[in-house]
């Protein structure tokens, strides 16, 4: 920046150079994304609309026209929405606790948040199947303290699915919200109070708007991760709760219908993009 200012006194020229260097910095990541993301995506789109007799919308008609597949889409959406909602409800207060914590307490809390990220999703999902099965730790504990007499069915229920999903995606909600909350100037709530705002009014008029960028980032992350989760529904609920992800896998691996799998992939992508774009728009309106 300084170099540019010294060597190029004209503001227009320096702005040009800045733009050029910005493009330069973005180029490597752009190329990588183009090769590993944009190109496959274009192929996916192509496969989803090309049948044996040229262009066709058969796969989309099947997906969006049969009650079974509408149910599948609804399952994915439901998993994404429930996970996002519960994760947010847990993460928002937790982020404030984390931001208020100091020293060793904060380090320990952050470590408990980060360390599970090092373990594979499969390991975590399996851990939940062990915890939740009929002779699992949770049932044994509940029976031991006399809350229940016979083991209750937990594994392969929607509750198990959502519990596991919330647990696995929690860090992706807490971290962006915590990052914003930690930046919050403690004088702002004080200023609001001296201006006559009760704690509740301060919360909704000052704290929520100022932490909204973190909330939106967390919601976008967790929703797009949970709506497209594959391992979690496969291990924690299985066949009776088909989602778009499991449908895609089946189409490619078992049914050998790459066109249909591609179409399901496009629908899933569209849902995720829609939510992320909506979040981004909300953020822009606020910013």
């Amino acid at each position, binding site marked *: 920046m300084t170099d540019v200012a010294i060597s190029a006194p004209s503001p227009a020229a320096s702005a040009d150079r800045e733009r050029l260097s910005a493009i330069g910095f973005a180029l490597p990541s752009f190329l990588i994304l183009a090769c590993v993301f944009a190109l496959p995506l274009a192929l996916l789109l192509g496969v989803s609309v090309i049948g044996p007799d040229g262009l066709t919308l058969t796969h989309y008609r099947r997906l969006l026209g049969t009650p079974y597949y509408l149910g599948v889409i609804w399952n994915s959406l439901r998993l994404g929405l429930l996970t996002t909602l519960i994760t947010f409800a847990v993460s928002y207060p937790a982020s404030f606790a984390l931001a208020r914590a100091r020293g060793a307490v904060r380090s320990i809390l952050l470590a408990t948040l980060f360390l599970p990220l090092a373990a594979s999703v499969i390991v975590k999902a399996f851990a939940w199947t062990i915890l939740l099965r009929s002779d699992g730790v949770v049932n044994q504990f509940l029976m031991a303290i006399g809350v229940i007499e016979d083991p209750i069915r937990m594994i392969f229920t929607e509750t198990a699915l959502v519990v596991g999903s919330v647990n696995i995606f929690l860090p992706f909600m807490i971290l962006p919200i915590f990052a914003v909350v930690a930046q919050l*100037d403690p*004088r*702002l709530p*004080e*200023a*609001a*109070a*001296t*201006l*006559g*705002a*009760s*704690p509740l*009014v*301060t919360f909704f*008029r*000052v704290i929520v*708007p*100022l932490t909204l960028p973190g909330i939106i980032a967390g919601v976008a992350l967790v929703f797009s991760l949970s709506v497209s989760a594959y391992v979690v529904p496969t291990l924690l609920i299985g066949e009776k709760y088909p989602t778009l992800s499991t449908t895609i896998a089946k189409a490619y691996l078992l049914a050998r219908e790459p066109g249909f799998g591609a179409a399901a992939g496009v629908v899933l992508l569209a849902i995720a993009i829609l939510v992320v774009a909506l979040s981004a728009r909300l953020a822009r309106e*606020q910013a």
Partner: protein
Amino acid sequence: MTDAAPHLIVRNVSKRFGATTVLDRVDLTIRRGELVTLLGPSGCGKTTLLRAIAGLAQPDAGQVELAGREITRVPPHRRNVGVVFQNYALFPHLTVAGNVAFGLKVRGRPKAEIDAEVERALALVKLAHLAKRRISALSGGQQQRVALARAIAVGPDVLLFDEALSALDRKLREEMQVELRRLLQELRATAIFVTHDQDEALTMSDRVAVMNRGRIEQLAGPRELYSRPASLFALNFVGLSTRIAGTVVGSRDGKVQVDTKVGRLAAIGTFQTGSPVVVAARPEHLRPTATPDANAVSGRVRSVVFQGSRTLVDVDAGAGESLLAELSGRDAAMPRAGQDIRLAWPIAETFAFPAEPHP
């Protein structure tokens, strides 16, 4: 302009943080329309006292009364105070007008009234043209004005300024001091400033409370504070001075004779013989010409510092003592460094304070 009736009363307020006593039985009474500064070094308790008045800190003991209402346990949002914070604490998600309107909106005022009040407040601080701007697009001085407009828009019973000008650069700060004082007088506002800047205190206030270690050491008008400091601390904190340590050898008619390492000096004060004291005088009273009823000390000029309208002359009086004289351009021959000089000053302008263990 000020009513005689007390408007804000701080009575016997104490506050401790752990083992530290931050406020030690503080009493302070302020009339309506008065501008008072809490002046002191960091850690003297001035900000805590301000926060106790705002309701942002809860005193451990004592009472606060504002506009005839006991508010010691009243939460800040029900106090009707206006606070201008050190770094302004403006809401970054709102525009200039949005910030100024905040206090009126949460009070549920009708929209037309809010708009009118916001316009009036912004006009007062000369920012009407920036109403739609974002806070991040403003300079420090402009943000300061928005913070002020936001605080006055709600018509508070008292305005509290917590080091509100300290983030501005020197020239802007000096301009703001004068402008702010005029504006507050126009509004007949009651205001308390917290600052560690003595110039700000002297410029802005009707009265200055010098605070030290959780207590108010002196509460007086700027002129009296400067010319009749009540303690060595107040003397040191406001303005420059010559200070010479000594021992009282005689006391008569409100005057003491003090033996010092640079000779016997006379000063105003009443002390028992043998008391350790510090004899002090303001630099503008020291003159290179002898006068009757004066103290006089000889020394060698250590440095001469030209400061525009005045010149400060630092004199080494020997035995580790120095004299500080302020000479104006009109004083004939300006001394030069290294020159021998004899400085004299009136006994009536010489104070004696009990020697304190701290400087």
